[in-house]
């Protein structure tokens, strides 16, 4: 196992710059998730670590050694592909043992290592099958098995679950988390699914347009987003964002109310207020920080999502626990949690009262 260091990484295709100034360190044994919208450069970054893409600028070091000019096979890294990329003409056992076969390892050793990995992944009965005879979930397991058989320095995952159905995705997510606990290996995982990111990661790297927006633990990103992009990207349903003005007393809300977040400082010049749906409390009638009409009510049993058309403002989502006694067409008052509301300046940077509050 080893740590991976990225220093000033840049990547461009001709004139198109897809990555710039990427500085990251993945600690030994850490599970890091790269997350961002499609086209943000996360997969490219992963493929650069793997050695499948050339590096236009900067340095990548694995275990202290710069690997820029090393081909993939000399980097000792395993990768799980989105399409699994199983060798269709080889059975499961040979797929899993291929990396050892290539290194001309002893046949008995290969068999032993493959059997061990197969047991870990519950594939022992499928070793003789061809990939085409497996289900999607089983193929996914074989792809992971192929990676763990080698005992590499680090594991890379490129959106490994995106080809699975929802139920299987949850199952495999737990499987990957279990695998990480068992192997204690450095793992870098790319996804556009924030749920995967939040549940799996020790640390999350949020990327957008070839740049890193923020790096932090899942809760840091959720509670103290560095900017508007991270605030709206992490969390589901996403954070309600409202244009606002402010003076030294607080933020002016539509309908004339003044809202003062807990971390308020009179020097702030916020342009936007962000409140997550779960930090809005609804009351019947017209009392609260602002008021509106409930338009759509979604009842999930555990939660109720209420889509409110706020007066002079527009749509907002509020999340109430349990089965809230609110129906479409009701007049509701919205109460924002002062401890959890976030303010952003004109450039979208989050405003915090002091640096200690920030991740």
């Amino acid at each position, binding site marked *: 196992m080893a740590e991976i260091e990225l220093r000033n990484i840049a990547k461009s295709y001709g004139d198109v710059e897809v990555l710039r100034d990427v500085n990251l360190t993945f600690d030994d044994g850490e599970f890091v998730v790269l997350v961002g919208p499609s086209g943000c450069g996360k997969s490219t970054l992963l493929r650069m670590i793997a050695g499948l893409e050339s590096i236009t600028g900067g340095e990548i070091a694995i275990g202290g050694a710069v690997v820029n000019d090393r081909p993939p096979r000399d980097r000792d890294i395993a990768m799980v*592909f989105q399409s699994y990329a199983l060798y*269709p003409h080889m059975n499961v056992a040979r797929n899993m043992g291929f990396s050892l076969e*290539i290194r001309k390892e002893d046949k008995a050793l290969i068999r032993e290592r493959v059997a061990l990995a197969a047991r870990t992944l519950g594939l022992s009965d499928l070793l003789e099958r061809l990939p*085409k005879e497996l289900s999607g979930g089983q193929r996914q397991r074989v792809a992971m098995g192929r990676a763990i058989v080698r005992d590499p320095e680090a594991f890379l995952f490129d959106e490994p679950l995106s080809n699975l159905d929802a139920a299987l995705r949850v199952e495999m997510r737990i499987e990957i988390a279990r695998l990480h606990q068992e192997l204690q290996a450095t793992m870098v995982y790319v996804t556009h699914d924030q749920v995967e990111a939040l549940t799996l990661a020790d640390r999350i790297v949020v990327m957008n347009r070839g740049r890193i927006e923020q790096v932090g633990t899942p809760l840091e990103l959720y509670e103290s987003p560095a900017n508007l992009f991270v605030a709206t990207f992490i969390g589901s349903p996403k954070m309600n964002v409202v244009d606002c003005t402010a003076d030294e007393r607080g933020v002016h809300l539509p309908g004339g109310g003044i809202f003062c977040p807990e971390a308020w400082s009179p020097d702030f010049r916020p342009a936007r207020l962000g409140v997550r749906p779960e930090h809005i409390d609804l009351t019947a009638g017209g009392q609260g920080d602002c008021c509106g009409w409930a338009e759509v009510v979604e009842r999930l049993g555990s939660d109720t999502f209420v889509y409110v058309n706020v007066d002079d403002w527009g749509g907002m989502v509020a999340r109430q626990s349990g089965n809230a006694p609110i129906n479409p067409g009701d007049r509701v008052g919205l109460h924002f949690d002062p401890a959890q509301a976030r303010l952003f300046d004109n450039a979208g940077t989050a405003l915090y009262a002091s640096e200690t509050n920030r991740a």
Partner: protein
Amino acid sequence: MERQVTAAAGRAAPGTPQRTSRGRRLTLLKVAAEPYLYLSPALILLSLVMFVPLVIGIGYAFQKLSLTDPFDRGWAGLDNFRTLAGDRHFWRALTNTLWWTMGSLFFQFFLGLGLALLLNRRFAGRRLVQALVFLPWAVPTFLSGLTWAWLFNPLIGPLPHWMAALGILSEPYNILADPDIAMWGPIAANVWFGIPFFAITLLAALQSIPKELYEAAAMDGATAWQMFTKITLSFLAPMIAITVLLRTIWIANFADLIFVMTGGGPANSTQIVASYIFTTAFRRLDFGYASAIAIVLLALLLAYALVLLSMRARLVRV
């Protein structure tokens, strides 16, 4: 079909048990006959143009049927085959066929594979080159044979002079006139003619190999050579088997180039079985004997095809 069955069953239901079973049998017969009805135009056409001539041809092989001796006709039994076993020219032609086929196939295949691998890389003007590569295939055999014959002629062609300069020939003479090496003339023309076929079919197979497999292999630690042998060749194997099979049969029967370039000479040194059959049937007008030779060739090629097809069945796992 399904609707017919249910409709018939529905009709038969209220009747007596006897009528029901007869009705069902009739329906079953209809169902069984239906696919053959649809197939019948193709089957009739195929049997008319292939099966009937084949049977007649096989029949000729066991008869005396020479137009130069029209009154001596009739059943010959295995006489033709007995003559064949002792026919020096036939054995010479069979050996020549082997050289001709294997020599042409070997170079066509390996050069074609190399060309396919080159064309599978990205480079400027790739599409144009891909189109140009197909050109020899589009040239009429007669023309290419004639052109190659001229190329080998020291009076007008450069090849003998080049070969002499390289030390392959002692002096610039026409190799088509030398019984020992004349066969290499048509083989060279055939290689030039046949490379595009292999290049294009193998290129199509190469392009169907998913790119991620090479990336996965790179991550697994494979060298370029290991990727070629363990992925590329595994994927190409079924295609290689089928193209080699087809080409072997075609080349073995492909006497056009030889006919144009050497006419089977000098001294039968470039006569192959196919051209020998042609000569026997249409020059010596001995159809019985020609048919016997044709049947031996057919049997040899069939045996070869069976071996290759069974090999292919083992190779195809994807």
